[in-house]
């Protein structure tokens, strides 16, 4: 295989920051620390094991919950963002830039801060409940629910859905739409037969870019889901920084999650045809 010399630094970069960490994760996942027999107290040695992996099975409900919530959030995101992206893409220069800026602006603020903001809104004594209180309604149980977690995911990952959709939709030329109308297509037909099929690559990218971070998030569920909505991300976090300190198990869960995400994505990519993923934005 012939590679360009200029690609060399990038190859080193990839090896250091992607391949090596991945191998480390795999190493941790398939090893365990056991006490050395007859050795000093606390002295351990590393042994190969698949116990970590098989233990992950215990957390199947957490995995299912993570995938379900992330999937719901992704679908809601798509439904909300598709029309937004379309409107932005059809706008004129200044209008288009302003709307895009508005989409990006929240991303400049700290992720934690934004999620905190939602906490104060959703709380029992939060703004929303106080507003409903004015009409003698509520208080509603909003925070610490699955809905709150989904809301947090939708809110935080929305730009990742809008941007790839927008970038693919701006490539749809006005004359293509005019041609469809000229050939007898009314608004609905134009959408179903031209705009939708042409924006599928963007839909695919958007779904990937929302689903993958959503399925492994841990901050959102902790802040908006209380203790009741432990997600797979929280579980991994606990193994490294929490009380249940066990990096080997944490690595094993990560590996399983990775395989699951890859599976989800490859199944998902079977839908439609094997079009090139040209909606990729980043």
């Amino acid at each position, binding site marked *: 295989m012939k590679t360009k010399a200029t690609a060399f630094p990038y190859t080193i970069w990839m090896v250091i920051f992607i391949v090596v960490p991945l191998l480390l994760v795999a190493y941790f996942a398939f090893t365990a620390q056991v006490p050395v027999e007859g050795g000093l107290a606390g002295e351990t040695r590393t042994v190969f094991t698949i116990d970590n992996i098989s233990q992950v099975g215990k957390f199947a409900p957490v995995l299912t919950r993570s995938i379900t919530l992330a999937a719901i959030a992704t679908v809601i995101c798509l439904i909300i963002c598709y029309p937004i992206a379309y409107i932005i893409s059809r706008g004129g220069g200044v209008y288009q830039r302003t709307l895009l800026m508005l989409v990006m602006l929240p991303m400049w603020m700290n992720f934690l801060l934004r999620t905190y903001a939602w906490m104060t809104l959703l709380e029992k004594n939060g703004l929303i409940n106080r507003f409903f209180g004015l009409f003698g309604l509520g208080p509603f149980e909003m925070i610490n629910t699955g809905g709150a977690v989904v809301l947090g995911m939708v809110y935080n990952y929305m730009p990742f859905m809008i941007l790839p959709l927008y970038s693919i939709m701006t490539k749809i030329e006005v004359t293509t739409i*005019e*041609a*469809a109308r000229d*050939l*007898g*297509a009314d608004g609905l037909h134009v959408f179903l037969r031209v705009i939708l099929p042409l924006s599928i690559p963007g839909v695919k990218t958007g779904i990937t870019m929302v689903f993958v971070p959503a399925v492994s998030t841990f901050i959102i569920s902790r802040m908006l889901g209380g203790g009741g909505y432990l997600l797979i991300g929280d579980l991994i976090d606990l193994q490294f920084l929490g009380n249940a300190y066990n990096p080997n198990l944490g690595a094993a869960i990560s590996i399983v999650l990775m395989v699951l995400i890859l599976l989800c994505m490859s199944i998902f990519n079977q839908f439609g045809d094997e079009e090139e993923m040209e909606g990729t934005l980043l």
Partner: protein
Amino acid sequence: MKDNNIISLKNIAVDYDGERVLNGINLDIRDKEFVTFLGPSGCGKTTTLRIIGGFVDASEGDVFFEGERINDLPPHKRKVNTVFQKYALFPHLNVYENIEFGLKISGVEQAERQTRIREMLELVNLTGFESRNVNQLSGGQQQRVAIARALVNHPKVLLLDEPLGALDLKLRKEMQTELKRIQQSMEITFVYVTHDQEEALTMSDTVIVMKDGNILQTGTPQDIYNEPINAFVADFIGESNIIDGVMLRDYRVEFAGVQFDCVDAGFGIDEDVEVVIRPEDIKVVDPEGAPIVGVVESVIFKGVHYEMTVGAHGFQWMIHSTLSEEEGTKIGMNILPNDIHIMRRTEEA
């Protein structure tokens, strides 16, 4: 329908951002006619086409199709189809599916769709290309898919917006003949937009010359070429020598310091006029006794003829001749009365 007009525009005006791009256009297009809007860019020819297609709303005036007012009819309900400037094929569909698009929407049966698409592919010489991706086709092939995609719906009128602009010269010539053949065999009306005068003259039954949102002249290619209404049309329809002259009386004009007989009348005595002479109508003769004598300044070989620039009476004359003269030679020029076209002075330069 005694007048046989399929499309009529009555007093159509269009404003874009407060600027008037069409200025009260009146015109009738007869059924089965090949009509061409000809003019420089920005003259309003494409806007006129889009008025007919339904993509632009007229600020004033009415559009009639077979005698019915269709101002408020959206494009998808009009019985016209368009071949767009950049083809605008559907990139996610192959050749067959592109042509099928309109038929599917209008609910034509599968079997009939197949026959009609096959006919179309044959008509545009693309049999065997059914499953090709449109992005892999050459410009000329994409062009023909666009034509087939429009014609398969059997429109009463086909609108073509500079469809040959992106093709190279040889292909363009071929497509010109091809389009004329298609128009005649399908017996439908073609409304064609171009800035290429040769294209307009080659294919059209009627040429409509436009400038600055106005129609300057409507007529057969022969009329437009031989009897241009003003110096702009004359200059736009092929190269011309445009010289200031004075109409002495009917059938007598003076220019370049010489008096000539001509075939025009109806001007005032001693009226200032513009005289238009086609480069191929100037005869090169012996300087001895010739009405105009000049010196050859440059000679360019153009294939069929030589293009000579000749200086005489402070004017540079363009002459097309099959014989060439040496640069610096003194030659005589003669012009026959029939080849002298007298125009009233136009206000603008």
